[in-house]
């Protein structure tokens, strides 16, 4: 059996630099969970449908189960652990999920928080239809999406206010 050659990658995750050798087939999700110890990124299907593993890769929401760690070489990654503000203050999206019962078991939640954060950055004033479309790439089995939709609606309002008041406060 041939030994798989490892490839050096350097990735900034939530602002911190990680440099290590990885097998070419190591997914970004497993890299984050096992090499960086960031277990907030969850794996619900490993085939890119459920969205639980969503992270921001250079600002874009991606399924980290469908990205290899080597593809993230030189990139900036933000995971759910990087969403809260200083002093563990919940981000507007996280706070809205809490206020509107947008989570129950919490397994899909990190993917939703990351996806919604990117969605609201790109669609700061979404219609309900756009919210539902924006959420359609993430699966939740507990809430029936009721609290999640309400949370996004609320976060959108808050987002806009914060955007005006403190333009640099939005987290990536």
């Amino acid at each position, binding site marked *: *059996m041939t*030994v798989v050659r490892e490839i050096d990658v350097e990735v900034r995750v939530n602002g911190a630099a990680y440099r290590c050798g990885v*097998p070419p*087939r*190591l997914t970004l999700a497993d890299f984050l*969970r096992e090499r960086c110890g*960031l*277990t*907030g*990124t*969850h*794996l*619900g*299907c*490993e*085939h890119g*449908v*459920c969205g*639980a593993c969503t992270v921001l890769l250079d600002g874009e929401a991606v399924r980290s189960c469908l990205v290899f760690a080597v593809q993230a070489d030189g990139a900036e990654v933000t*995971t*759910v*652990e990087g*969403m*809260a503000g200083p002093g*563990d203050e*919940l981000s507007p999206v*996280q706070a809205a*999920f*809490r*206020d509107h*019962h947008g*989570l*129950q*078991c*919490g*397994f*899909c*939640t*990190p993917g939703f*928080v990351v996806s919604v954060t990117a969605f609201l950055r790109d669609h700061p004033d979404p219609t309900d239809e756009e*919210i*539902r*479309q924006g*959420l*359609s790439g*993430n*699966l*939740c*089995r*507990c*809430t*029936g*999406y*009721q*609290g*999640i*939709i309400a949370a996004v609606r609320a976060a959108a309002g808050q987002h806009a206010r914060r955007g005006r008041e403190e333009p640099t406060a939005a987290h990536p």
Partner: protein
Amino acid sequence: MTSLEATAARYVGARVPRVEDPRLLTGHGTFVDDVTRPGMLHACFVRSPFARARLGRIDATVALDLPGVRAVFAAADLNPGVHEQWYTLIGKDVPDTPRPPLAEGEARFVGDPVALVVATDRYVAEDAADLVDVDYEPLPPVVDYTTALAATELVHEAYPGNLAGALGAPMSEDLAAVFGGAAHVTSATIHQQAYAPVPMETRGMVAEWSGDELTVWSATQAPHEVRMFLARLLGIAEHQVRVIMRDTGGAFGQKVLPLREDMCIALAAMRLPAALKWIEDRRENLLAAGMSRHEHGEAQMAFDGDGRILAAHLDHVQDVGAYPTPWPVGTAMAVGLLFPGPYRVPAAGYRTTSLFSNTSGRTAYRGPWQFESVAREVLLDIAARRMGIDPVDLRRRNLLRHDELPHTNPNGMPYSDMTPIETFEQALGMLDHEAFRREQADARATGRYLGMGTCSYAEPTTSAMAFQGTEGATVRIEPSGKVNVYVAGGSTGNSLETAVVQLTADALGVDIADVRTVQGDTAVTPFGAGTGGSRSGSMLAGAVEESTTVLRERIVTIAAHQLEAAPEDIELADSSARVRGTPAVSVPLAEIADIAYFQPHRLPEGVPPGLEVSARYRARSPLIWANATHLCTCEVDPVTGAVTVLRYIVSEDCGPMINPNVVEGQIAGGSVQGIGGVLYEHLAYDEDGNPLTTTFMDYLLPTATEVPVIEYGHIETPSPGPGGYKGVGEGGAIGAPPAVINAVADALSPLGVEITRLPLTPAAVVALIEGAR
């Protein structure tokens, strides 16, 4: 005893934010896959690609040569390690069906685990699983349970006719006489497809044997069941097993009992030098974590000339797959017992038959008996249309009123504390039934097909049977005055931490921020049966009440002594004990705790030191009844077959609510699972027994674009249990399917469509319309 009453509820009944949320929202939860141990090894199962095959030689030579592979186990290695195998929930005296850890002699469904590979990482374990060479001799499978009774092939040799068991009886002569003399008789055979719980977190376990103690981190609803089961399985003492679960990512019945893979991991861990982790992938979850809902029934009802029900009978047949868990025959009985539902039914009977097939085994799923509602409610709509009356009117003539209870149904179910007609009318009022009928008529005139459907059900929650009949809580006020509550747990999204903290804060009159709870660790919490059977709200309320009652009495006694007041004049509020009417005369809880722990000489005579109490609650009634009416409206596109749910109303009676957010969340989640079960989800097999839906591209869960806004109506009848609470976890998944089916059937009724087969995919709806032409 007024002094021992809690002060006015501040938290119970309020929409208190969940204490679980901060860690889950920030990625700091601890699910089983987040657990790592020194030197931890990883497991991957080799699974049968055949629905049925004789197992020959299993050659692991090449697999074992792969660097990083530590072991490959076959049935001969693991299965002899089983000492006893039975579930505490069911007991050991039932005629249980087979459940070997690894397949022995024969593989019985696609996905049947035949070997277990252990390696230093999951990637290598998966590589090695592909290198294990298994000799399979394919055999003709029994795929269709509806013909299994007459099949020449057997899933299990010891079960002739593939019959796992049957209970009840065909229609008796007496009942047949009622049917014979009735003005109207309606019968229909209704088929439900297989679907599954599909929690977002798959199953998983980490097991570590120290030579003296087995520590297990498990994705489970019932850590103490896992502990007792594994101790018996391995032949070690109960207290040599410690089961830990912090966060579990949904379960819905699938994680209520340890399954075959869990047995394998524990058995293998006993023979390995380090912890062994198994995390099921989604393909395995859809292949082998179990099937639910696959059943049919010939439902019959007799009515008098005014549409009043005279009698009912259900002949129910269910698919139990190859390795059902638990014993499926007993649980099927509930389908028959509950078939009369919340209606006035003078006479009834049922028979239920459980048949094996070479498919994934039947497992519990949120309201495992829900076919009683599917069969009854769909039949009622068919009957109403055949009699030429609105299904709403038929129900109005037959639904039980609150003031008719208690009422024992003809199968012996002792209904009480329910509001069937009241929830029905509330739901109709929320819709404006008459306005909808006008809108429907107008739409039909323009070629659009709108429909409405309802489902009313009676749900037994909080069973007091055996293992589930008691629940313990330890409440410990620390020397600083902070409060910890220890309960068994098993919360898999059920918000049990929040509920317990609310209940305890009110019972002790302390600020909610001063209360924390520890759950899901068998080494430190009292014994408890976990989540299942919609029991946790009532049972935890009882457990907290028992413990805090003793604790309050002790606090009051100490405070009365300190304040030189009579105990009956002391009230607990704002984290202090004070004299009623003179709030300035008070002593902080922290000071009482300091006395109780560090200044025992200041305690009144006979009061023990410390502020820690463990107590157990024993259920006050054999069952607690909950009920609801679900109401769905939809539009069906007759060209594409697409069903769009328009309004979705749930009027329920779960008694007083500990936390309305949690109640509504449970209802919404269950309802959407039921909507998915009717319209999208199908755990399908081809005729050779090959599974067709092993990814989320094929097994379609509802997404945010399909779900309706759910509207809640609440009617409150207290139960006989503590606080009057009832169970609410399962009902949504029971009530939703018939409401959706009936809405589609109502929409298509002008076309002469009658629905008796599920799911209602666009293709199925188009076929129904074409078939009716």
